[in-house]
């Protein structure tokens, strides 16, 4: 196998052997390269790559393709030439497969093409088409006198359709009709007879009535006639125009198109021209079949159930008058056999022995047009208007005391209500009906009429108010109609009907104007905010004018619109009053809005009620707070959301490009990064406490260090002190590095650094736990101090006792450092008085009544009130048990730092670091101190040994005990105390 075939994977076993294959290949190669090339073209054989001779059409015997397997031919092959010039454009030829086929191939394909055969050209369309094309071609070839293509009618197909052929085979000849020759022959004979009759009777027109009587002989004659009838030649059916144009109207114009009844009328008129005696069935006939009155001569008609058909037309074409005449005469004489109605269709097809029924069921009933009464006025008057004509009640009728009769009173009121609802028509009707009834005298102006009028007016008013049809009676009728249409339109469009529930006590012109505006705006804008208002209670119900102004105000507020009215309305008010009122309105609107948005209008009604009660008070005095309920809060929440804020945002240039937009920031420097809300919260909410605390720590340290320095000035100095001091210094120096690391470097970096530091300080410490938190803390610290530098306001800290104690403490310490040896009482007093916590740490330890020493009595007294009993009991335990004593400070610290639980981790971390540095010193000192304070009370000689022992015992435990940041301060303080103690000891 070839090397290049190694890539392929073969499935199955190859059949041929390798050597065979290769030998054949070799042969093929040799042949191809060798002598075969020298052979002439026609002698060459085509072989495939494996040397096998290639045959075409192996199943048909095989042949070699082309001219000895070439694409050429013996004559040679010439490509198609293509020339095209500006003058002589060559046409783009539509090539088909036929262009590429030989003649024999074409012949092969011949049978497979779809085409039309003239054989099945039933209607001769194809033939006609061909013929026309032929004619066109001919016409093009030799131009005739008549220019243009030959008209279609002139060009007839040369072929005959199958139908024609069939007919011809059946004996039909051209030019004949296809109807039954015998029947038509009978009919023709009859016609002949008629003609003879005509000739006979024409000279005596007066005798037509007598002649019209049928005679047996006539019939006989008719019946006999067909016998001697020979086959008459009937022409082929001519094209028959059913409705020949007989008028002078334009083509296709039908004057009765939209009023067919007039057509009927006209027909009646024309038919009435005919003889009264004969036109009985005529109209009926005409109404059934098309109008042919033009054909029918005046004075005569065709008999009932008879129709003019083609034969008739044919026969009487020349002499219509006679025709009709004869017809009339003939009509009754015709036997039932001759029923012409059926003749048209079945004349030729009547079965022998059957006859057509004489009277047909098929009769159309026709009614005369209704007689119009003489006094009819051709103008439609609508029944009484729906609303009672309020013009009568323009001026409200005077208040009338009701009639004495309570029944009558009830009746009057009922009728008034009905009339108000149903309209004036009802009144008229009832008046008419009850003319004789004495009870209804009030309708006719009798007793109680005044009361009725008054009631009616009231009812109308009420009704108008209800339906908000305030404008009736005042606006002219035309505008009312207009309004009605607008209402209709509103109904059609499904607009909200206008509701107005409140009663207008004294409608003035101005108010109607306003209402009109309201109506308009309501109908058009359908404002949700305002349209609901009428359903709500009115806040200023008791003052309609004010209420009106309020509505105007609302309208303006929510919709804008015309302001002139409002100003004119309020023009008579003073400026101050107007301003006050405006405030009221604002508040009321707010309340309405609130009520609406919180619950539907239904629920808001009561709440609004009490609001409005309190509202007036509140809005005038401004002292009472509006009631805040859950709804209000809900509303507030809703009002708060959605809240929209805008920021600058810079799309990347590529994004703009992809969006096909111009970069709005093109050429501008990149904007300062927006402080993300997350960071914001980090700085100002949770970490702010820590931050300030850290700050205080820093200041405390800074304060402490001078204290140390002052101490350093002193000749008495301990190594432990020194170490602490160094440690403090180191921390101060180290901080910024940490900060920057925390901010600008990765966590991992930080971690490494931190762990290094930790390693340096203490290998035992686990740095990883608190690293992240620490870095955040430091970052917060940094940002906070940065903020201070920039003069930014740092959010107020939570009250925290340590800073307070710390700040004065070192001061005092520095002061006390000098005079340390002199007076310890003062110092301890100062400490206790300064700080509650110091009291806990120091004072309370001495406050136990049993162990109280004279030296610290004052401090104990002072701190007694503040120190809690827990601390005391703790202290008590502490005294009892050394181990327990170690724990108590930390637990107390818990009490202190309970609010800082979250930050304890960080602080612990710090604490640890602090510890790690000053492990030996500070812890030692602290323990020493605590032991000393106790020892002082008890026994000064035991103190040293116990203190040392305790310290060594509990050093490690100390480290593990949870402690807060405050512990650190405390420790420092303790540390300082311890130092003092040491100094004192020395």
């Amino acid at each position: 196998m070839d090397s290049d075939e190694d890539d392929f994977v073969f499935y199955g076993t190859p059949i041929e052997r390798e050597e065979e294959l290769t030998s054949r290949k070799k042969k093929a190669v040799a042949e191809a390269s060798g002598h075969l090339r020298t052979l002439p073209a026609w002698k060459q054989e085509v072989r495939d790559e494996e040397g096998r001779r290639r045959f075409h059409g192996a199943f048909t015997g095989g042949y070699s393709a082309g001219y000895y397997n070439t694409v050429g031919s013996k004559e040679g092959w010439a490509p198609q030439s293509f020339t095209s010039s500006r003058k002589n454009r060559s046409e783009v030829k539509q090539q088909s497969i036929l262009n590429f086929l030989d003649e024999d191939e074409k012949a092969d394909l011949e049978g497979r093409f779809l085409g039309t055969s003239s054989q099945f050209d039933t209607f001769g369309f194809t033939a006609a088409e061909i013929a026309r094309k032929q004619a066109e071609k001919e016409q093009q070839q030799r131009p005739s006198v008549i220019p243009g293509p030959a008209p279609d009618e002139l060009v007839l197909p040369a072929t005959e359709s199958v139908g024609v052929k069939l007919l011809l085979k059946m004996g039909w000849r051209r030019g004949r009709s296809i109807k039954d020759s015998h029947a038509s022959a009978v009919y023709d004979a009859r016609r002949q007879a008629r003609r003879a009759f005509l000739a006979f009777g024409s000279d005596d027109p007066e005798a037509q009535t007598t002649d019209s009587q049928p005679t047996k002989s006539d019939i006989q004659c008719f019946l006999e006639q067909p016998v001697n009838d020979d086959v008459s030649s009937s022409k082929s059916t001519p094209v028959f125009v059913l409705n020949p144009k007989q008028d002078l109207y334009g083509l296709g114009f039908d004057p009765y198109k939209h009023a067919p009844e007039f057509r009927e009328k006209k027909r009646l008129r024309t038919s009435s021209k005919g003889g009264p005696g004969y036109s009985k069935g005529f109209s009926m006939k005409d109404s059934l079949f098309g109008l042919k009155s033009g054909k029918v001569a005046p004075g005569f008609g065709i008999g009932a159930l008879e129709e003019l058909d083609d034969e008739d037309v044919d026969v009487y074409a020349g002499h219509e008058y006679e025709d009709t005449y004869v017809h009339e005469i003939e009509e009754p004489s015709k036997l039932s056999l001759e029923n012409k109605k059926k003749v048209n269709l079945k004349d030729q097809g009547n079965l022998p022995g059957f006859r057509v029924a004489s009277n047909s069921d098929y009769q159309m009933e026709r009614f005369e047009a209704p007689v119009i009464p003489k006094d009819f006025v051709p103008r439609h008057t609508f029944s009484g208007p729906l609303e009672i004509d309020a013009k009568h009640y323009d001026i409200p009728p005077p208040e009338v005391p009701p009639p004495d009769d309570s029944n009558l009173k009830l009746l009057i009121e009922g009728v008034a209500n009905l009339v108000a609802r149903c309209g004036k028509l009802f009144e008229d009707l009832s008046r008419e009906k009850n003319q004789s009834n004495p009870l209804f005298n009030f309708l006719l102006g009798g007793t109680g009429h005044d009361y009725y009028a008054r009631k009616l007016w009231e009812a109308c008013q009420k009704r108008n108010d209800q339906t908000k049809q305030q404008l009736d009676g005042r606006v002219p009728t035309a505008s009312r109609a207009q309004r009605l249409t607008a209402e209709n339109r509103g109904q059609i469009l499904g607009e909200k009907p206008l509701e107005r529930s409140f009663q207008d006590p004294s409608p003035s012109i101005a108010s109607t104007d306003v209402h009109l505006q309201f109506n308009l705006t309501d109908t058009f804008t359908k404002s949700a905010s305002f349209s609901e208002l009428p359903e709500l209670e009115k806040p200023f119900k008791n003052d309609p004018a004010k209420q009106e102004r309020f509505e105007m105000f609302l309208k303006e507020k929510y919709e804008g619109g015309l302001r002139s009215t409002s100003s004119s309305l309020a023009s008579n008010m003073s400026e101050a009053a107007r301003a006050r009122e405006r405030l009221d309105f604002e508040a009321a609107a707010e309340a309405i809005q609130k009520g609406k948005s919180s619950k539907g209008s239904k629920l808001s009604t009561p709440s609004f009620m009490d609001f409005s009660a309190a509202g007036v008070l509140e809005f005038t005095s401004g002292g009472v707070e509006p009631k805040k309920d859950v709804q209000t809060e809900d509303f507030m929440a809703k009002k708060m959301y959605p809240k929209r804020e805008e920021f600058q945002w810079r799309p990347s240039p590529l994004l703009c490009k992809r969006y096909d937009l111009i970069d709005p920031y093109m050429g501008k420097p990149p904007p300062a990064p927006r402080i993300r809300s997350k960071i914001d919260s980090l700085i100002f909410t949770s970490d702010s406490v820590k931050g300030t605390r850290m700050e205080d720590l820093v200041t405390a340290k800074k304060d402490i260090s001078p204290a140390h320095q002052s101490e350093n000035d002193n000749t008495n100095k301990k190594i432990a002190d020194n170490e602490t001091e160094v440690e403090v210094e180191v921390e101060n120096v180290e901080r910024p590095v940490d900060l920057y690391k925390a901010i600008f470097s990765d966590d991992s970096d930080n971690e490494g650094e931190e762990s290094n530091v930790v390693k340096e300080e203490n290998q035992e410490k686990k740095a990883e736990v608190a690293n992240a938190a620490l870095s955040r803390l430091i970052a917060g610290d940094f940002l906070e101090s940065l903020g201070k530098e920039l003069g930014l306001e740092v959010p107020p800290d939570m009250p925290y006792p340590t800073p307070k104690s710390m700040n004065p403490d070192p001061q005092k310490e520095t002061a006390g450092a000098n005079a340390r040896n002199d007076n310890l009482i003062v110092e301890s007093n100062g400490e206790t008085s300064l700080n509650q916590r110091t009291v806990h740490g120091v004072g309370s330890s001495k406050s136990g009544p049993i162990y109280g020493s004279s030296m610290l009595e004052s401090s104990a007294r002072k701190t007694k009130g503040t120190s809690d009993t827990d601390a005391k009991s703790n202290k008590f335990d502490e005294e009892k048990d050394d181990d327990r004593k170690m724990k108590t400070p930390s637990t107390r610290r818990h009490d202190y730092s309970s609010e800082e639980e979250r930050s304890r981790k960080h602080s612990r971390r710090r604490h640890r670091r602090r510890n790690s540095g000053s492990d030996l010193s500070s812890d030692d000192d602290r323990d020493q101190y605590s032991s000393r304070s106790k020892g002082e009370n008890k026994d000064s000689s035991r103190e040293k040994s116990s203190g040392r022992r305790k310290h060594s015992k509990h050093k490690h435990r100390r480290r593990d005990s949870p402690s807060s940041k405050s512990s650190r301060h405390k420790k420092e303080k303790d540390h300082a105390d311890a130092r003092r103690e040491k100094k004192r000891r020395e």
Partner: protein
Amino acid sequence: MSVSDLPRKEVNVLKGHEGAVLAARFNGDGNYCLSCGKDRTIRLWNPHRGIHIKTYKSHGREVRDVHVTPDNSKLCSCGGDRQIFYWDVATGRVIRKFRGHDGEVNAVKFNEYASVVVSAGYDQSLRAWDCRSHSTEPIQIIDSFSDSVMSVCLTKTEIIGGSVDGTVRTFDIRVGREISDSLGQPVNCISMSNDGNCILASCLDSTLRLLDRSTGELLQEYKGHTCKSYKLDCCLTNTDAHVTGGSEDGFIYFWDLVDASVVSRFRAHTSVVTSVSYHPKDNCMISASVDGTIRVVR
């Protein structure tokens, strides 16, 4: 369009997904639809004849959203595998994968010219990816959200994202401005009205809220359905006359746009209706559900 024209009758059920279907979307002309689901596949359907045409498999986790270009030539999809896949529709091959989201990708959309894919991720960011170049780096990362971004909508000039932090943020590329509309409730899904003037936001307090885009005003609230824990789609009908959305109880709701009344509701699925998509022209919609079916309603 009247209420009676709203789709109600189920025409076809498209079955094939194993497990929940997370999204179903009509293509641009509404002749086809795409669905994706928990079974890590995207499927192409003819919803009107109920035929499954093609399945696109490549995602490693559930597929959460899919979108097709207006010319139907490319797909983009996203899901739990933190990637955005850019597909060739005809061959079913992945042309490109966009990696970069730090969390699951919730939604993905093409822009108008299909030149940019914008994805919304659990990592609180919107990312825009370039389809024209061969770069797989995002063109832009928008990370002003403070919680998972659930849904994204694109207009010709804007990118709009809805997030669990309760904001709908509109990033106007033309003006270079970000508008944040805080709704106070986690936003599940946003959808634009067909006239582009409003945004419908589905919030996790079982309320759909309609916002006016120009003013940020709350126009209407649609309630009645249940949407408390799932990402449920909502949309407006093609005439903008009604609002529709699924419910966690398997119902599909229709609200009147203006008065927010429930005009129609019917049970379409046995389980949570995760996604609805309305036909761009006809009164027809598809809905996808956790029960693994997509139903075509007419």
